[in-house]
């Protein structure tokens, strides 16, 4: 993993992803300055085959992005450039490209397109994982429950892309990495608030009930982080899709517990729009259902294990490290 890239991304995010930027993006304003800064530093090209970066580096950057609730479709923009390649205009300019799902195979109506409204080119992922390039002609704006644009887009000039990667698993892994990062931030917010808020003459962190909530949160966040790392480490291996399935499931389970507990710790303050907590918790709630919910990936993993049979299950589990 390239720590220099992750650190460079972190500096930019820390500077740019203020509450004001997050609020503005939710009001529909594309964070142009942030995007341009990232492009000046070459991030839009980092997932392209000859960028010099590993695919794993992309997910390291996405984890950092999760920590800052980066209001850009970073995963989709970078993966779109990868799949479009130079031939189809990937990374050609600083224009935004993105990725959506085909309503049905061959359809020109693409769904859940992150920032489809601001995109120049779109990659559509079919049910079977095939990827296609398309040019947007009409956009129906929509958002997920975090207020992140997830548009419906009519496209034209649909052409198949010569990519044999497991696109659905890579997109799911993006949500896993983003969530792992956002979960870390939510834990930090919970600890910070508990140490600073006083009731009954002392910080609420002194109360055992609060300590236990945050201990449980820390355990869930650590599990999510470990699950995410394991799936990233499996990129390129035979088991990649199954590892992503496990990670998407495990991280999704953490999300519910962590968001609930850390809101409880924050009291009414965390229920205000003014507080930043919801920018993270709403994203977590949205992301656990995007790119396949827990149940979707659990069933995929479970089917494989059932096909192996009861007496082979242990071997499957024990040959992952």
């Amino acid at each position, binding site marked *: 993993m390239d720590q220099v890239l992750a650190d460079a991304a972190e500096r930019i995010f820390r500077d740019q992803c203020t509450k004001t930027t997050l609020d503005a993006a939710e009001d529909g304003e594309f964070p142009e300055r942030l995007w341009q800064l990232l492009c000046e530093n070459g991030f839009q090209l980092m997932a392209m085959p000859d960028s010099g970066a590993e695919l794993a580096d992309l997910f390291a950057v996405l984890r950092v992005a999760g920590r800052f609730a980066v209001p850009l479709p970073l995963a989709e923009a970078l993966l779109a450039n990868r799949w479009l390649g130079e031939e189809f205009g990937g990374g050609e300019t600083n224009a935004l490209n993105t990725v959506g799902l085909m309503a049905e195979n061959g359809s020109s109506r693409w769904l859940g397109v992150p920032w489809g409204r601001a995109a120049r080119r779109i990659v559509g992922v079919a049910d079977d994982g095939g990827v296609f390039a398309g040019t947007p002609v009409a956009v129906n704006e929509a958002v997920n429950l975090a207020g992140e644009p997830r548009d419906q887009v009519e496209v034209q000039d649909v052409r198949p892309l010569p990519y044999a990667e497991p696109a659905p698993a890579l997109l799911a892994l993006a949500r896993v990495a983003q969530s792992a990062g956002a979960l870390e931030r939510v834990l930090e917010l919970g600890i910070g608030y508990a*140490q600073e808020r006083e009731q009954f003459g002392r910080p609420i962190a002194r109360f055992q009930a609060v300590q*236990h909530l945050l201990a449980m949160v820390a355990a869930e966040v*650590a599990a999510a982080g*470990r699950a995410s790392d394991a799936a990233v480490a499996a990129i390129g291996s035979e088991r990649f899709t199954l590892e992503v399935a496990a990670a998407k499931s495990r991280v999704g389970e953490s999300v519910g517990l962590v968001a609930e507990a850390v809101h409880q710790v924050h009291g009414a303050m965390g229920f205000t729009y003014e507080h930043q907590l919801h920018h993270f918790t709403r994203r977590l709630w949205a992301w656990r259902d995007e790119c396949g919910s827990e149940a979707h990936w*659990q*069933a995929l993993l479970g089917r494989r294990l059932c096909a192996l049979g009861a007496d082979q299950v*242990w071997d499957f589990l024990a040959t992952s490290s």
Partner: protein
Amino acid sequence: MLQFDPVQLPEGTAALRQEVRDFLAANADRTSAPNSDFSSGHDAEFSARLGERGWIGMTWPKAYGGAERSFFERYVVTEELLAAGAPVSAHWIADRQSGPLLLGSGSEDQCARYLPAIVQGRSFFSIGMSEPGTGSDLASVRTAAKRVAGGWRVNGTKLWTTDAHRNHYMIALVRTAPADGNRHAGLSQLIIDLAAPGVTIRPIRNMAGGEDFNEVVFDDVFVADADVVGEPGNGWSQVTSELGYERSGPERFLSAFRVYVEFVRLVGADPERFEAAAVGRIAAHLMTLRRMSMSVAGMLENGKAPNVEAALVKELGNNFEKLLPEIARTAAPLGGDQERFRRTYAETLLLSPSFTLRGGTREILRGVIARGLGLR
């Protein structure tokens, strides 16, 4: 932020794993337990066979019969045994923590006297921490040892001592000097021969019907100076240093594993979507827990004392051990051959209240984690 670095099992562990599986297959008559709880199968003969293979005390110095192998190799052996439901209770405590305690804090003479028989799977140890008035608050132990010529006289009662009625020794935490304001001072660990005069052991039946734990009463039991572990008065720091070993191993998330195996067998090769999802959900937990537990093994291998990380793995693992039977139960189909699943499920469910108690309760572990987070 707590860090759980990935570890790669060293080369050669795949072959070792296969050896253990072959051994288990050859001993299938003794390994058909319907649950994988580490403390419910006591089989001295099985332990002796493991000892013959060199799979007890694997990481210990060769001078004491050990094999000087890595924590990862030990990890592979222990997880294979547990996953198969093998009866490991007899040697488990001696291998996991009594031996390492003696190596870390005991005398050379103690290591020479006790470790070789442990390695052979012929000498079994119990943990003597809890008492009638002492559970989570371990420093409150009242069992006391008074100085006499050449050693100590011990009086008091230990409670919940797993396998005391079948094992040879107990390492007991006792008070050897008054607390004098610091309740962690004046505590010592003694090796007590459970066959010594003055020791009375009474098994206590548990709610699952088993008789595994005991009340152990000491009435003027003599313990020689040579059987005090470390310096008298140093008991508290020694007992807390055992916790990394005690809390993070595969036994902290595999207790219910056989329920999973039988659940997969019951749903068959072509499950409904919700059945498949239950199978996948459990697998996702297991994959993550195993990796976290191995990360802690890596820290132990590197000589660290990962007490907070171990508490965190135990907290997650014990909760999961209770969740697993519940996921399986609620997703189990009506038809099919239910017998094995029902039996394993029932046995495990009846044992499950103990999962979040033994080795430190969930509440105590959350306290340890909270301290690690800087909250207390």
